[in-house]
């Protein structure tokens, strides 16, 4: 019956291998490929940082990241000072003093990254549609990071026969082929330290990876822990197998 165990083992491995491979069909657009999804892949810190800048420049005016605190950005490789600076740049409502009403004051690293719009404001501005919180946006769509990339790069002129909603934009990736979100990425709005300006496709790639990180910040930890555990168990397993073998020899 040992064969059964081996079969289970093999099945487990196969399952693990198939999933990432799946995500890799069509490599025509290299920017639509995400390195971290590979078997040994991990997030690229530089990409994440660029992604965050794109988020701040082009998304933060409508979308929040309510599950992410400014302090968490240290996970992107930023230092404490950078994070404090970023936080101080945002205003959040806080109730201070006695029974006073909340006032807008500078955020601290321990505040969440909230949307500047209340749902009511947003609904008014977008005629009923509300820009959702992006913390888990990558996990919300079966396509993951690739979906976000496709959405951000999917804006096209609307075909003539398309019935468009008022203030909506044609988008090949959007559900119903239209979305209330105007094309958010402005080419050249993000400038790197070396003076290079990012193109919209690069921006889309980076912000998609950044949103994968916001959705699953422990991805890298999990992989390294998991590999560690596997190596440990492999070692222990060999030892125990050997011991078992010697025990069996003595069986009465």
């Amino acid at each position, binding site marked *: 019956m040992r064969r059964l165990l081996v079969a289970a083992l093999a099945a487990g491995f196969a399952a693990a291998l198939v999933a990432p491979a799946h995500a890799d069909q069509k490599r025509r657009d290299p920017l639509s490929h995400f390195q971290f999804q590979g078997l040994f892949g991990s997030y690229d810190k530089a990409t994440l940082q660029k992604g965050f800048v794109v988020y701040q420049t082009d998304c933060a005016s409508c979308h929040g990241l309510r599950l992410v605190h400014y302090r968490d950005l240290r996970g992107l490789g930023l230092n404490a000072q950078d994070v404090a600076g970023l936080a101080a740049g945002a205003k959040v409502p806080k109730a201070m003093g006695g029974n006073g009403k909340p006032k807008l004051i500078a955020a601290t690293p321990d505040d969440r990254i909230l949307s500047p719009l209340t749902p009511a404001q947003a609904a008014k501005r*977008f*005629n*009923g*549609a*509300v820009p959702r919180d992006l913390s888990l946006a990558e996990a919300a769509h079966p396509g993951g990071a690739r979906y976000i990339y496709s959405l951000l790069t999917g804006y096209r002129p609307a075909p003539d026969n398309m*019935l*468009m*909603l*008022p203030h*909506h934009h044609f988008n090949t990736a*959007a*559900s*119903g082929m*239209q*979305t*209330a979100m105007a094309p958010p990425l402005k080419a050249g709005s993000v400038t790197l330290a070396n003076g290079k300006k990012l193109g919209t496709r690069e921006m889309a790639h980076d912000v998609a990876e950044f949103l994968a990180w916001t959705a699953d910040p422990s991805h890298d930890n999990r992989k390294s822990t998991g590999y560690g555990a596997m190596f440990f168990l492999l070692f222990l397993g060999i030892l125990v197998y050997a011991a078992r073998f010697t025990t069996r020899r003595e069986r009465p």
Partner: protein
Amino acid sequence: MALNAGIERESGAAPEAAHGEPRRDFLKILIGSTMAVGAAAVAWPFLDYLGSDADARAQGVVDVDVSPIAANSGITVRWRGKPVFVRRLTPKQLAAVQATPMKDLIDPASFASRVSPGGESWVVLVGLCPHRGCIPLGNKPSDPRGPYDGWLCPCHGAAFDAVGRVRRGPAERNLPVPPYRFASPTMIRIG
């Protein structure tokens, strides 16, 4: 009762057993039934506790006075946490939805299945778009109603007719009709 068995079994060994029997039998039955009554009296509160509490009961059923609603206008009420649309249709609107051929519908449903018999001019709908759950527009006078004079979802453009049947995607199902009935000619009881 288990007590019974024990006493019977042991009584053979006890010297004076036979003597006390009849009185004890009666007592045992009395004690047993008294305890049963007590147990039932204790069980009842524990069971009643599991049913719905006062807030839940309050949430379950909503009465809506529909008399102030003019033809071709509607109101939104909240029922079990969901928005519910109540709209009064004009004869023209009624004629239009009754005339729609089934084959034009994405999720075919007859006119009769969408209204309550005797109150055909009233539509009552759960106001959540079956596509991703946005609240369709069309219930306020200032709202657009979409191409089918019903509701229009602001998120991805699903359009519904005047009895809430989906006529344009991406939604694939009609707006749900909640359970309701006319408690009086001017009062709808939802729930």
